[in-house]
C-alpha cells in the first residue's frame, strides 16, 4: 500500500475577477496554459452565475491514480469475462453448489423478528450493542471461561474483522510505541495496510513452506524467538488466509511457549470460527489454549463468513487482560479511538448476531447451516483431490488439498502458473496461487483439475 504524501509545488497565485467590474455574460478568451499556471477560461455554466471566479488548476491535480485492490480487483476482472467456463475463485465469499451467494436462513429469520418487534434506530454506545458484545465474547472464549467469569475481557464491537484489527492497531500505536507486530509470510493482503495506516511497524515470520506446501514450523518458531521481547504476534485462529495451513494442537502449544518466553503478546485474527472445521468450539481452541494459560491477548473477530453477514460489517475486538480493572481501562481507550473514527458502530448486523446467538433454536439452526457450509467446502476439496489424482500421472503429492482447511487453498502455483489459470482457463484467482474453495462447485472440479494440472506441468 503506498499512498505517499504528495506535496504540491507552490500554489499558483490566483487572479480573482472582481465581481463588480466584470460582466459575466461577456465571453472571455479561451487561453489555457499548462499545469501550475493560471488560465482564464469561460464556460457556459460560469456565465449563468452572478459572480465570475478565476478558474484555477485543481488543488488535487498532482494526485496519481491508485492501483486497484489486488483481491477485490479479481472479481472485477471476472465480471468482465464472457467465457462460458469462467470460474471465480478470487474473493473469499461463500457460494452454494449453484455458485450463488448465500444468505443463511437463520439470518432471514432474525431479520424478520427484528422487523416485527419494530426496534428503534437510536445510536449504540461507542462500544457497541451490549447483547452482541456479551454473545461474541462467550462464543469465542466459551461461556464457562475464567476470563469471562473474572470479567477480564474488554470487548468492543468493531466494523467486522478489518475494523476490529484497526482499533487494536491504533491501541498498539498509542500505548506500545515502537512495538512491532509480527505477521505471517504470507498473510491476508490487508493486514499490512492496516498496520501501516495505524503507524505500527511490522515484520514477517516464516510460515508457508513452498517445498512441502505446508507449514515451515521451525522457521516460524525461530523468527518469533528472534523478535524483540514484547512484540505482538499476529496469529490466524483457524483457517489461515491465504494458505489454509494451520498449526496442529501440539504446534500451538509450542507457539504459546515461545510467546510466553519472549513476553510477546498474541494477537489473533479469527475470521472463520465455525467455518473451518464446522465446529465453533473446535475452531476457537487455539485462542482458548492461550487464554487458559492466563496469557493476555488480543482477538479480532468477524461474522462476515460464518454468519454470511459480509456487508453488514459486524465483528469485535477483544482484549484479555490480567485483571478486570485493567480491562475496563483498555475498553475506555478503545472507545476513545472509535469515537473520532465513526462515533459508534452500525446496529443492524450486531442485532442479527445477538438474536441468533441469544436464541437456543436459532443458535442450533446456525450451527447446522454452518456445518453444511463447512461440509460443502470439505467435499469439494475431496472431489478436487480425487479428480486431480485420477488424472495426474506423476508422483506429486496433492494431499495438501485435503490437509489445508477453510475457505482458501494455496495451490503452490507460482505467479506465471496462476496467470495461465486465468488467461488460458478463465479461472480467476489471486497471483499468489490462492484459490477460494467457497467459489468452487462439485460440478466444476474436473475442469479445475485440468486447469491446475496443465498450469503446473506446462508453465514455469
Amino acid at each position: 500500500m503506498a499512498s505517499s504524501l504528495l506535496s504540491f509545488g507552490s500554489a499558483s497565485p490566483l487572479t480573482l475577477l472582481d465581481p463588480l467590474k466584470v460582466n459575466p455574460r461577456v465571453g472571455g478568451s479561451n487561453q489555457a496554459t499548462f499545469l501550475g499556471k493560471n488560465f482564464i477560461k469561460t464556460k457556459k455554466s460560469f456565465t449563468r452565475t452572478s459572480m465570475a471566479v478565476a478558474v484555477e488548476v485543481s488543488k488535487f491535480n498532482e494526485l496519481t491514480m491508485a492501483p486497484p485492490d489486488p483481491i477485490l480487483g479479481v472479481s472485477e476482472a471476472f465480471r468482465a469475462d464472457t467465457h462460458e467456463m469462467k470460474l471465480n475463485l478470487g474473493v473469499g465469499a461463500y457460494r452454494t453448489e449453484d455458485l450463488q451467494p448465500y444468505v443463511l436462513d437463520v439470518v432471514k429469520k432474525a431479520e424478520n423478528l427484528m422487523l416485527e418487534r419494530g426496534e428503534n434506530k437510536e445510536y449504540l454506545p461507542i462500544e457497541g450493542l451490549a447483547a452482541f458484545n456479551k454473545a461474541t465474547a462467550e462464543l469465542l472464549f466459551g461461556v464457562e471461561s475464567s476470563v469471562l467469569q473474572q470479567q477480564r475481557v474488554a470487548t468492543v464491537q468493531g466494523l467486522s474483522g478489518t475494523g476490529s484489527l484497526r482499533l487494536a492497531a491504533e491501541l498498539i500505536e498509542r500505548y506500545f510505541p515502537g512495538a512491532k507486530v509480527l505477521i505471517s509470510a504470507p498473510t491476508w493482503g490487508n493486514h499490512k495496510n492496516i498496520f501501516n495506516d495505524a503507524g505500527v511497524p511490522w515484520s514477517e515470520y516464516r510460515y508457508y513452506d513452498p517445498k512441502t506446501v505446508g507449514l515451515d514450523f521451525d522457521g516460524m518458531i525461530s523468527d518469533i524467538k528472534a523478535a524483540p521481547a514484547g512484540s505482538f504476534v499476529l496469529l490466524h485462529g483457524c483457517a489461515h488466509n491465504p494458505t489454509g495451513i494451520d498449526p496442529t494442537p501440539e504446534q500451538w502449544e509450542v507457539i504459546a511457549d515461545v510467546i510466553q518466553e519472549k513476553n510477546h503478546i498474541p494477537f489473533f485474527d479469527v475470521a472463520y470460527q465455525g467455518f473451518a472445521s464446522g465446529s465453533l468450539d473446535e475452531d476457537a481452541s487455539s485462542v482458548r489454549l492461550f487464554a487458559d494459560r492466563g496469557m493476555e491477548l488480543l482477538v479480532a473477530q468477524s461474522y462476515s463468513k460464518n454468519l454470511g453477514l459480509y456487508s453488514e460489517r459486524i465483528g469485535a475486538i477483544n482484549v484479555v487482560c490480567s485483571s478486570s480493572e485493567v480491562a475496563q481501562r483498555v475498553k475506555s481507550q478503545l472507545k476513545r479511538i472509535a469515537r473520532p473514527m465513526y462515533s459508534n458502530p452500525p446496529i443492524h448486523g450486531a442485532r442479527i448476531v445477538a438474536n441468533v446467538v441469544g436464541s437456543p433454536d436459532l443458535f442450533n439452526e446456525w450451527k447446522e447451516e454452518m456445518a453444511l457450509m463447512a461440509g460443502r467446502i470439505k467435499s469439494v476439496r475431496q472431489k478436487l483431490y480425487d479428480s486431480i489424482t485420477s488424472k495426474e500421472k506423476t508422483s506429486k503429492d496433492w494431499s495438501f488439498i485435503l490437509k489445508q482447511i477453510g475457505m482458501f487453498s494455496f495451490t503452490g502455483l507460482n505467479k506465471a502458473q496462476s496467470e495461465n489459470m486465468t488467461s488460458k482457463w478463465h479461472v480467476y484467482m489471486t497471483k499468489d496461487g490462492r484459490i477460494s474453495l467457497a467459489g468452487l462447485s462439485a460440478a466444476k472440479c474436473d475442469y479445475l483439475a485440468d486447469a491446475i494440472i496443465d498450469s503446473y506441468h506446462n508453465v514455469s
Partner: protein
Amino acid sequence: MHGGNDSHSSPSPSPSPADRRINALVRHLQGSPLDAADPCLAAAPTSAAQISVFDHVVRAPEDPILGVTVAYNKDPSPVKLNLGVGAYRTEEGKPLVLNVVRKAEQMLVNDRSRVKEYLPIVGLADFNKLSAKLILGADSPAIQDNRVTTVQCLSGTGSLRVGAEFLARHYHQHTIYIPQPTWGNHVKIFGLAGLAVKTYRYYDPATRGLNFRGLLEDLGSAPSGAIVLLHACAHNPTGVDPTAQEWEQIRQLMRLKALLPFFDSAYQGFASGNLDADAQSIRMFVRDGGECLVAQSYAKNMGLYGERVGALSMVCRSADVASRVESQLKLVIRPMYSNPPIHGASIVATILKDRAMFQEWEVELKAMADRIISMRKQLFDALRSRGTPGDWSHIIKQIGMFTFTGLNSTQVAFMTKEYHIYLTSDGRISMAGLSSRTVPHLADAIHAAVTKAA
C-alpha cells in the same frame, strides 16, 4: 503522517518501552495494590503477565456529550429531562423511526433476491449517486460534468474522518479552521487524521448570534489554501447560521484566499423543513465552479442514527481529478473498515429513488422540523410569561435541533441538580428532547437558574 512505517507522535504522552518495563518491575517488587484485591491474579499463578502489559493504559474520561445521557440514566427522578444528545424525540418523548423508513425496511427484508455480499469499497453505487443529487441538486452541473466523487461512509463522523485523512495525505495545506464553538468531536476527528486545528470566531455571546466581522477577519488572515470547516446549516451547538448574504460574502472571501471549504451537512431538511433550502450554502459554493468537500449524514433527517449512513462528496475541477481522488479515497477506507455497511444505505437509496416515498419522507421530515420550531416558540413564550430576565429571542432565531441558551456552567449544574435537567455544560439544549408537557418544567428551571445561580 500515516503511510509507511514511521511512527508518529500519539495524541497523549506515553512512557517509553524502557520506562514501561521499569515501572512494571518496580510495581512488581513493591507489590501492586491489585494483588491483594484482585482474586483473579491468584487464579493464574503461572501467568507471565501478573503485571498487565496494559497496566500503563489510563482510564479515558467519559465522552462529554454521551456522558450526559449516562448521568441522566442514573437519575431516579420522575421529572428528569434529557436535553443532551441530539436525537429526535416525539411529543411523547419517544425515539422515532420514520414510517417511510419502516416501509423501506419491510421491502428490503421481503425482497428474496437481496444478498449480503460485500459492497464495493466506495459503497452502494445508487446510494452514492442519489446522495450527491440530494445535496448538490439533481441539475447540478458539477454532477453532470462528472466532477463529483461520492463515497459511502459511516455517517457524518466517518465522512469527516475519511475526508480529513485524504487531505492530510494529498493536500498541501494541513491546517483546518473550525468555528468557535463547534461539535466537540470535530477537533478529535481532524487531529487524529493528522491535520492541525485552528479556530475562527463564530459565536458572539453578547448577541447570542453570529460574530460575522470576527469570522471574516479570521478567515481573511488564514494562510492561502487552508481548509475551512463550514456547517452547512443548523450550526451545532449554537443554532446560529449565516444569512444568505453573509454566506455569499464568506464564499467570495474564501475563493479570494483559495481556502478549501469542507462542509459538514448533518441536518439537511431538518433545519428549515426544506431540503433544498438547507443545501443552499453548499450549492452556492459549487455553482462558482470551485472545489469543496461535503460530509453528509442521514442520522437525523432520516432518523437512521444507529445505522451509520453518510457520504463524503468531493467536488473537483475535472472528471479526471475526481476519478483519481476516488481511487485514493479507497486506499484510506480499505485499511479502516474495508467497505461500508449495507443496511442503512439500502434504506436511503430505496426512499430517494422512489418518488412517492421521497415525498413521504419530505412530509415526515417537515413534521419533525415543525415540531422543533414549535418547541422553540413555546419555550420562548414560557420564559416571557415568567418574566425571566434577559433577551430570549435567540431561542426562536436559532435554527435546527439545538439552542445555545447562553447559560453558563454554574447555571447548568444548578439546573441539573435542582431540576434534573440534563444538558451539556456549554448550555446547549436539544430542542428535539422537549415536549409541550415538559416545556414549563424547563422554563421554570431556566428562570430559577438565571435569577438564583450566578
